[in-house]
């Protein structure tokens, strides 16, 4: 018997389109007004960019296997957003240094995660959870609760505004597409990507086939931290304001986006396309629930229920009998 199989990223995208079309039929939906529909779709994708970029690092550590996960991503996003905000302080020429510092600080936190996990044999879940606390603590020490700074016109121009008035697509989306291409290249066309999948499937066989597992692990966590740092930079460029809880709400959704995108949480199999689709689906569901003006309680329950249905469709693990 041949089973029809749709790859998870495609399934997630189809689901997103169906949900979006259905949302048009709501009382306050876009109805048959195509312009409004396009504007709404663009807006949802624009919101998904930040979750998508933050979930990129998560995708890498999850593919690397051995219970890989990065629970420090949320606080790294907050930290780098605040750093960028303080450093730029309204001056265009400081945007590039701010971006580099955001990436470096993210990579440093990721590297500490990697060291703890690789050398001290702390499980990724608690190591990154602990680091999340350390980073949050550092933010409080650093800012004493209030931050003074400013984004610069250049940042807003590059991230929040459209490329040209004729093409009404915010730059953030274009950045995301380029970002997705780069990650695809990284995962599918480089030695790093091949090794990453190899250590995700089985660390012992990977080591015996000549992969430097230790270096790979360190590099993966450092890179994941840097990507979260990039997410923080983008986020502050878009919103223009920072607060101490900026990144935390993205943490668990970033894991959910990876899972919905069909990446195995046990590692060794997955794609960034899937995560992008997952980020769009999750953002769509969240904004739908907001437009429908559901109370917070119902919103949480529907979100949980939908997530459960989504992972029931293709998140199942192998049966024991196989």
């Amino acid at each position, binding site marked *: 018997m041949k089973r029809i199989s749709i790859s998870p990223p495609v399934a997630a995208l189809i689901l997103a389109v169906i949900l979006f079309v259905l949302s048009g039929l709501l009382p306050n939906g876009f109805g048959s007004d195509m312009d409004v529909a396009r504007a709404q779709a663009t807006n949802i994708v624009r919101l998904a960019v930040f979750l998508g970029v933050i979930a990129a690092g998560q995708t890498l550590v999850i593919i690397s296997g051995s219970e890989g996960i990065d629970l420090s991503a949320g606080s790294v996003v907050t930290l780098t957003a605040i750093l960028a905000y303080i450093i730029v302080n309204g001056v265009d020429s400081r945007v590039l240094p701010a971006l580099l510092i955001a990436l470096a600080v993210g990579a440093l936190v990721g590297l500490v995660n990697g060291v703890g996990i690789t050398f*001290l044999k702390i*499980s990724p879940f608690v190591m990154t959870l602990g680091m999340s606390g350390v980073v949050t603590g550092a933010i*409080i020490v650093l800012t004493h609760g209030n931050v003074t700074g400013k984004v610069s016109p250049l940042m807003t121009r590059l991230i929040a505004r459209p490329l040209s008035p004729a093409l009404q697509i915010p730059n953030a989306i274009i950045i995301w597409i380029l970002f997705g291409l780069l990650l695809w290249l990284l995962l599918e066309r480089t030695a790093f990507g091949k090794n990453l999948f190899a250590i995700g499937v089985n660390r012992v066989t990977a080591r015996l086939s000549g992969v430097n597992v230790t270096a790979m692990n360190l590099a993966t966590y450092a890179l994941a931290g840097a990507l979260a740092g990039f997410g923080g930079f983008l986020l502050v460029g878009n919103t223009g304001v920072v607060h101490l809880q900026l990144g935390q709400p993205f943490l668990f959704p970033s894991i959910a986006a990876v899972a919905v995108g069909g990446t195995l949480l046990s590692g060794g199999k997955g794609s960034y396309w899937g995560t992008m689709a997952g980020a769009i689906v999750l953002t769509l569901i969240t904004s739908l629930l907001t437009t429908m003006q559901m109370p917070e309680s119902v919103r949480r329950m529907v979100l*949980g229920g939908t997530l459960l249905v989504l*992972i029931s469709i293709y998140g199942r693990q192998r049966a024991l009998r196989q």
Partner: protein
Amino acid sequence: MNQSRWDALTARQPAMFALILLVLSIVINFILQPNMFARETLNSNMRVFLPIILMAVGQAIVILGGGIDISVGSISSIVNTVLATRVGLDGSPERMWQFVFFSLLIGLLAGAINGFFISFLRLQPIITTYATSFLYAGFALFILPNPGGGIPASVASFYRNSTPLNLPLAFYVIALVLLIWLYISSTRYGKFLYAVGGKAEAAYETAVPVTQTQFMTYVISGLMAALSGIAITMLSGSGNADIGGPMTLNSITAVVIGGNALSGGVGGVTGPVMGAITLGIIQNIISFAHIDTWWETFVKAVIIVVALAAPGVVNLFRRRA
């Protein structure tokens, strides 16, 4: 000679490090707070620690079986909101005990839902319980949209002030839980639990009922989360739908500090109980050490990371030597 003895000790007693940490933190706490062992102080500490201890016990059993439960905090929240809205400040103690029983059923049911999806439908534990944590948290908020409600003062004061034989009530609860664990770990189910957590496929090959064993871990965890919710309700005396959420990750940290491997099959319940107490004492130490408020979060997190790293550091140096 010394080295191999250390090896044997940590292999046979995963909770060894937890014990060392616990003793160390108690000593530091005692220096900062000399009246720590006075009946009143001890009781007021233990009644605050008890909810997280109970939650950590359930989490420990799930983790032993190779899973993880992110929904425990939300289960506690449901129990808290049910008790606070259905019993009320002027409710009778009898009504309270009825709803305590009802709360345990809620915990069993919530755990069974988790277990059904994870062990029967074979979904990944972390993301499944993350999804159900939203379901349960939403349900708690549905029951009690704004903090409020309460339980009879007599019940709250029974929890807060009972010190039979001059020992805190929490000690008796912990002793009871550990005794039950001692019994369970000696039964066939206890052996199955370690087998499933160690390697589920191998356990399946040797005719261990893997599905049922895993399912039961989530049911137990749901039950313990409900007990934790009951304890925290008696402690706070009022209802708040977000009361349990922050406890979830602490319960996992407690289990790992207690020496259990997050990958399953290694450890026990005594270690996690010590881990949970250690976490509470660390909080105490920080408030008594008069650390600048801005530094509190940072210092606490660093202490926890160091505590997690300590066994690894010891092993690293031992390998060099």
